[in-house]
């Protein structure tokens, strides 16, 4: 028996109001006609128009998306490999160091990661630009991917892989035909996580970006430091809208696939006639 007391209803209402009101206010004020962001002067889409003509922002957005797609794709491959090594790899030299290096970046303050990578890039004489940001983002997001994928690898039945090997497939075939389809949802969510982390990152990108490549968060940060601006409100609204649509779609898709999986299990358990 679950009871919904007035206390629970109140705490949920207040809690979600706290989580969502600031963003709702931001979205509302992005349609404000006034340049003064705190005074409401009627509805207008003026700031969206100005944003679309701001070439610096558009360029930064393009760099950010490019970096996010490349780094999250490499991170997904490396992270999946790392997860496979951690869960299925057995013993090898330096295994403890390896798992330490997978978990450490997750708790490492961003300022330290950024500083250390910058000092490395300067030390080896690598010019800062898109490449250095991609290297930096790949490194920390592969660790997140590996954590997501290894939790899935741990929970799945190893005998399936063994059966494939017994039936004559090579380890690579067993991975491609048996393991990969099973861990695919985790690999996809790992990619999405890596992509979002890369889009979102300000601190590490600030250390590793050069004058030739500025990402959107760096651009937003330097604009916002001077105060609230209606153009940034408009930009934020667009980003919030994209994320909301993405998350709702993803949750609907996963809900449907879990329903289908339930149906399939039920169908399989039904005695054949």
């Amino acid at each position, binding site marked *: 028996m679950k009871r919904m007391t007035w206390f629970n209803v109140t705490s*949920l209402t207040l809690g979600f109001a706290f989580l969502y009101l600031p*963003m709702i206010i931001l979205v509302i004020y992005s349609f404000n006609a006034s340049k003064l962001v705190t005074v409401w002067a009627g509805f207008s889409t003026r700031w969206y128009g100005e944003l679309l003509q701001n070439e610096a922002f558009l360029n930064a957005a393009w760099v950010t998306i490019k970096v996010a797609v490349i780094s999250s794709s490499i991170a997904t491959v490396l992270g999946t490999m790392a997860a496979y090594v951690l869960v299925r790899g057995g013993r090898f030299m330096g295994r403890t160091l390896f798992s330490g290096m997978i978990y450490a970046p997750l708790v490492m303050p961003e*300022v330290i990661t950024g500083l250390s990578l910058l000092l490395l890039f300067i030390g*080896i004489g690598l010019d800062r630009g898109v490449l250095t940001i991609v290297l930096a983002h790949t490194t920390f997001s592969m660790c997140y991917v590996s954590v997501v994928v290894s939790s899935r690898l741990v929970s799945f039945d190893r005998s399936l892989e063994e059966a494939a090997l017994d039936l004559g497939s090579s380890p690579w075939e067993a991975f491609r035909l048996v393991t990969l389809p099973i861990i695919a949802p985790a690999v996809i969510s790992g990619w999405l996580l890596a992509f979002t982390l890369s889009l979102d990152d300000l*601190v590490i990108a600030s250390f590793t970006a050069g004058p030739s490549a500025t990402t959107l*968060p760096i651009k937003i*940060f330097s604009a916002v430091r001077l105060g609230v601006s209606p153009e940034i409100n408009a930009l934020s609204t667009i980003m919030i809208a994209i994320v909301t649509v993405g998350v709702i779609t993803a949750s609907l898709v996963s809900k449907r696939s879990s329903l289908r999986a339930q149906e399939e299990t039920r169908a399989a358990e039904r005695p054949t006639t």
Partner: protein
Amino acid sequence: MNMRRFALIAVPYFWLLALFLVPFLIVFKISLSDTALAIPPYTPTIKDGISALIAQLDFENFTFLASDDLYWKAYLSSLRIAVISTAFTLLVGYPIAYGMARAPEEWRATLMMLVILPFWTSFLIRVYAWMGILSNEGLLNQLLMWVGVTAEPLQILNTNTAVYIGIVYTYLPFMILPIYAALDRLDESLNEAAEDLGCSRLQAFWLVTIPLSRNGIVAGSFLVFIPALGEFVIPSLLGGSGTLMIGKVLWEEFFNNRDWPVASAVAVILLLILIIPIILFQRNQQKQAEAEQ
């Protein structure tokens, strides 16, 4: 086949060695080198012989950190801000997680999605959203003045209060999720048993629910405390000139003063401070994993 296994291990291994471990060793090395040597363009010391490397080591930067008040105060004030905001996040997050765990089954997936959604939204934008609300002409002050709490707008933005609000707001999902996970598994008949045996509702909550959700509370608190300690974005956007946080100090030391050795020394000490909570967190997670088996 062995070649393949080797490649599978070696590729991610060397990637992390080259881009995680080596850079960190460089920070460590530079923190022990002379300012004059390390001001850009500093000569990369990787190539130098080991003897030269040892000869160059000195602890000047660390003694400098110890002698200058600024750094001590920044570490202490970061710790204080992180502890206070973790406590507030727990106070705000626990009732939400509790409400979620007691909500009807069919709501829970939606509530869960509503908690996770802000996490996918840009961190920077979530912090920025508060700048407009907390400013002197902002909505919060307008509301307070309209209600009549205050005649003059309160200075909230650019104070530590704004930093607390920012940390609680942005890290709230990290607190809610582990507590919710712990409460969700909790058997409600235990509370009923306690009440049958004469506990009041509140006593049953203190004596049964809180201890049984301890793992979630501990995990959530570390998940907020650890990143909050090295936070940079929140103090620099919401905090004022009086807000001292070590992430901000490191950033300014590096970008404004261009003092690389001191920035590196600041980083090394921050990491040393973080090792204790990280180890405690790992231990808590392990205990929890063992308890589940």
